[in-house]
């Protein structure tokens, strides 16, 4: 389809989606904790915008609710908690060297292509205006996993985890205009609880190995035995 034929909102929607993808790459590339968190917050915010736009173009009022939910949770609350935690653990300014960053980005690009390749058959089915973004949402999920695999700092891993959640939410919104409300709420609740637990764990890990480097947690393995 050609962009010109689309309404302005649609185009805005696509732009926002693209930006969401971009934030994922930003996270992949940033070595410091603080910009990482900010990138994550941005992603949340963009997600909220996307949701709102979808609600607008496909007049699904209940999506506004989930847009607000997302904004509150993913763009404000969780980033704030993360920021606060890392401030208290004073790791905000820690730098985690990324091994071969360029390779990372290439791998990320590959993942985007792969998810596009995987998602094509679905896209062909869909009649929704947002169908092309399904591939993007899947890419966001995979990039989140890549982030978790590539980082050894607990906080970074949590961010990756949360961006996977973002991807999921993104997918839900663009592919099916959101899940049933009760499920949405359940998911939101789970995410919140998860975040709280992560907070608890940061301190426990810190207390046990006085660092947040998960690579140093390898007591439980089959090798040493």
């Amino acid at each position, binding site marked *: 389809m050609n962009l010109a034929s689309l309404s302005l909102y649609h185009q805005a929607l696509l732009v926002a989606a693209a930006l969401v993808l971009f934030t994922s790459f930003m996270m992949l590339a940033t070595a410091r904790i603080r910009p990482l968190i900010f990138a994550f917050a941005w992603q949340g915010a963009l997600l909220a915008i996307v949701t709102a736009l979808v609600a607008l173009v496909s007049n699904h009022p209940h999506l506004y609710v989930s847009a607000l939910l997302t904004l509150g949770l993913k763009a404000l609350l969780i980033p704030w908690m993360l920021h606060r935690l890392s401030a208290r653990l004073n790791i905000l300014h820690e730098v985690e060297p990324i091994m071969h960053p360029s390779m990372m980005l290439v791998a990320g690009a590959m993942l985007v292509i792969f998810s596009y390749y995987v998602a094509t058959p679905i896209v062909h089915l869909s009649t929704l205006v947002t169908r092309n973004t399904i591939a993007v949402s899947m890419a966001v999920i995979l990039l989140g996993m890549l982030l978790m695999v590539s980082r050894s700092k607990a906080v970074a891993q949590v961010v990756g985890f949360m961006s996977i959640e973002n991807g999921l939410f993104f997918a839900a919104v663009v592919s099916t205009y959101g899940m049933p409300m009760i499920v949405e709420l359940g998911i939101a609740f789970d995410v919140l609880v998860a975040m709280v637990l992560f907070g608890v764990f940061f301190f426990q890990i810190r207390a046990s190995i006085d660092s947040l480097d998960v690579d140093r947690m390898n007591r439980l*393995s*089959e090798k040493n035995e």
Partner: protein
Amino acid sequence: MALSIAYLAVIAALASAVIALGSNFRRNDVTRTLPFLLLGASGVAAVAAGGWALLDNLKLTQQLALGLPWMHWHLRLDALSGFFFAVVGILLVAVSFYGPAYVREFESSKQPLSVLGLFTGLFATGMLLVLLADDAFAFMVAWELMSVSSYFLVTYQHQNAPNRRAGFLYLLMAHVGALAILLGFGVLASFGGNFTFDAMRAATLTPLWASIAFALAFFGFGMKAGLVPVHAWLPEAHPVAPSHISALMSGVMLKVAVYGFIRVTYDLVGDIQWQWGLAVLIVGTASALLGVLYTLMQSDLKRLLAYSSVENIGIIFMGLGLSMIFLGTHHPVLGVIGLIAALYHVLNHAVFKGLLFLGAGAVLYRTHERDLEHLGGLIHRMPVTAALFLVGCISISALPPFNGFVSEWLTFQAALQTPKLESGVLRAILPIAAALLALTGALAAAAFVKVYGVAFLGKARDRRAAHAREVPAGMLIGMGMLALLCLVLGILPTTVIDVIDAVPQLLIGQAPPSLTAHGWLWLTPVSADIASYSAPLVLAAIVMTFFIGRLLLRRNANPIRYSAPWDCGFGPLNSRMQYTAAAFAQPIRRVFGGVWKVQEQVEVAHASAPATLVSGVRHQLHISDWSWIKLYEPIGSLVLTGARHIGRLHSGHIRTYLMYTFGTLLLLLWIVT
């Protein structure tokens, strides 16, 4: 009716288990004896049911509402199971006499008697149920019940490490064997439609699948029966169990394995191919020969007996192999002779091996010593036990007129019918097998001369042997019963075979041609002028000559004078100067060198003053089984290596794990699209 007697046997065995468990709470003679009484009752019932099934050639089937909703337990009592029922029963009765006195030994030990009694009862139950089972599921349940309960009996005295090791090995082997059997049944069932034996009988298999089913059954049951090279568990497990259990295991449990083999091969798989028979014959011969050679080298009494079980199982399988060859080449008559020989040896071995293990138990009971090198002179201390044990030795050495000889003679006769075969190769191979059987017999005789000569004759080598006393009457009755059977089975083979006839009639549909054609006095396998043997006359003649000789010679003879034996003028002999068990076997060890892994070291200590003077010589001999080094250890190390490599997967790094998840996901996505 007969079937309900069979049930009675099972229930009695089960009851003995339960009561034994109850005896945990109050210990006295009643609680110690009652389980054995029930066991004996079960044995009597088993003999009755089995005998009935044999005599009337019954074929009774029934279903119990146990097992799966759509597959109840099928039970069936026919001539084959009847025969083995009787075998089990005989030993159960003997043990029930022997046990109560014997288990007193364990009252002082740390393990509660109740455990022993419980698992003894379950063990008997399991064996009887295996014989009754008529569908694969019930069979496997009973089979594993037998294995597991006997495993707990092996580990009963688990304070000593060898028992634990043996127990583990035993259970592992039993399990592997059971899995093979299960697979074999699976093959049969997949052709037969379901897991009842009737369906399997009805099924017609392609030759390939039939061979596969046979191979699996042969492996599985052979493993349990202790055929070379998968026998290694047997000499570990049998000796460490309490002696009356060893008697049951060696005497009967191995036979249950033989039963399974016969049931599957002759009954379920059906049309036998002679190649199978050849395989069985070869394996059987190898087991017989290696078994007896290892027997000769042992100095632990019970271990020695266990190895000799390997030998005898080998002889049984030789008989079966011959019979299968003949059946495969369409000589049913000769096939029957082989089968009869095998069955007869099953019966005989159950009896004399039971007797020998009980005897070993009696020795253990008084001397607490299993090592031959520390025994000796028991014939003076335990005369009755000695006499009974001698009967066992003669029988197992296949000497006329006792029972061992009859079955070996029949096996020879079967082997000598080769001229009737078309294939020249078989004609050439079978007599060789027969000659090796002869070698086996002769070596077995040597082995048991060693056992008896070292343990019971000569002078006591150890204080405990010197102060041994005769064992209680109960134990003697148990042994005496079996000893008597040895003689009866030896001199009345025709009568016994008349009873066994029912089995070949069931399996091959053919009665033995003329085995007993000339009345109870003459045993004539094929026909009178081909071969005949009259045990009663032989016995009569021996007894006659013996007594006539004594009468003639003891007339007006002066009283016998006793004096010191010839000592070459070096002063009195002491017990350390006797020939030891190791020394006795030494020539054979040299002749057949290489069969064993022998580690021998002689340390000569020289006296200080003149260096040439030898003050002491220390001789150490360690004989180990090749099957360990060549078969078991490689497999074990293989598994461990695999485990070690797999262990690498668990690096302990969470990112690695995430990578696994990620990789799996991408891989799957790539596969499905």
